[in-house]
């Protein structure tokens, strides 16, 4: 698992040789060149760069938090913090027998509502199609929205979810992380809510720091005493 990690900027030659270019790298002759600012990781036969900056680009099967911005008679449009708007068809909410005459879309989701959704389909030609027909998806009724940089979402989750578990355990909050950098925190106690929000913002600011989980743990515990 441990592999050679290196800080790179666009144009840096990570290595040369027969590797498969994955995320954020291009192959030029036999040189592997980074296309983003980030941390390069070399695996047995492939290379990728984990970016440290950038907008959210939808990927199929990503869980995102969206905000309803408008609706037509057949679909909603969601702001998913990306350069594209999420497209949520009415059938997804009302079921097969949806009828544009009988059903009023605003009865289920109004503009301004927050929704946990999954990217069902996305290609270059059309706006991403999202769905809320699944477990844990749908309208979010309570909680606070925290916005972080989408490139730092993997850091907030941590290795196998360690970071997010640490925060949830220490504060008793329930945290839903959208891959688009929007995070919903809900907690029964206001102290826990504030602490969890602070921890999330701390991860956003210090994403590049090593052993951040320990620092976050320390912060969460120290505040608990005072």
């Amino acid at each position: 698992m441990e592999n050679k990690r290196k800080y790179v900027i666009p144009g840096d030659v990570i290595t040369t040789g027969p590797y498969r270019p994955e995320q954020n790298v291009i192959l030029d002759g036999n040189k592997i060149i980074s296309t983003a600012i980030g941390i390069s990781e070399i695996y047995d036969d492939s290379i990728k760069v984990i970016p440290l900056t950038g907008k959210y680009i939808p990927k199929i099967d990503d869980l995102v938090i969206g905000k309803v911005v408008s609706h037509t008679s057949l679909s909603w449009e969601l702001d998913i913090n990306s350069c594209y708007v999420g497209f949520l068809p009415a059938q997804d909410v009302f079921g097969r027998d949806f009828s544009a005459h009988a059903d009023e879309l605003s009865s289920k989701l109004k503009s301004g509502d927050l929704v946990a959704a999954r990217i069902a389909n996305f290609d270059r030609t059309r706006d991403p199609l999202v769905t809320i027909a699944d477990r844990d998806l749908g309208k979010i009724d309570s909680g606070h929205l925290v916005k972080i940089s989408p490139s730092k979402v993997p850091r907030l989750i941590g290795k196998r979810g360690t970071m997010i578990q640490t925060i949830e355990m220490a504060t008793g909050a329930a945290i839903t992380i959208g891959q688009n950098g929007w995070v919903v925190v809900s907690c029964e106690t206001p102290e826990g809510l504030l602490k969890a929000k602070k921890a999330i913002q701390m991860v956003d600011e210090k994403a590049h720091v090593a052993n951040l989980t320990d620092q976050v743990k320390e912060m969460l515990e120290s505040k608990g005493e005072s």
Partner: protein
Amino acid sequence: MGGRDTTLVLLDENGIRCDGRKVDEPRRIMIKAGGLKNADGSAYIEFGDNKILVGVFGPRDVHPKHMSNTDTGILRVRYHMEPFSVTERKNPAPSRREIEISKVIKEALEPAVMLDKFPRTAVDVFIEVLQADGGTRCAALSAASVALADAGIPMRDMVAACAAGKAADTIILDVNNEEDQAGQADMPIGYMPSLEKITLLQLDGVLTPAEYKKCVETGIHGCKIVYELQKKALTEKYFGNGEK
């Protein structure tokens, strides 16, 4: 602009230029990545007495819609000089020269930016020249490329830019305002150092084929100096002073 100084010595007998530099010495360059909160990416550059601020937005929705391209994203660049950037007040309305430089910088950045990943979107680059002293297009291009990287827009390589030229019958690096006005040639070069490709090359003046070749080489040497500073600026912002 301003009147020509007839007593100006562009190059003295010791090979020292009018501002005290050697023939192959660039001006003092300082680049800082980030700094603007509301922009997706930003950069500030001081290139001698040039001071330029760049903000980048995007990829984002294209307005007006008809400009969007279903195959690829589009790059839009605005180069603008502040009214106070030169000695005589400059009319803030975009001049013929600014429109041309916007286009030139856009075309110099396009080979580097991988816009095909974001169809139907636009990346906007806003360049504000706060203080001008010759060679703003090169400084602006270098800063724009740092700002684009800061915004996280995928790029094949950074674009570094530096001018070379000819004054007092000698090929010089990094032409300043006086040398531009009174010199014999000015050649701004944009260069992608890792891919070893030129993205911008203009020439104002007359050079022999041999001088031309030397001028390009000198310019590329300057670009490599700028590239190191671009790299330093981004490394400082993202990785602190940690190991590289």
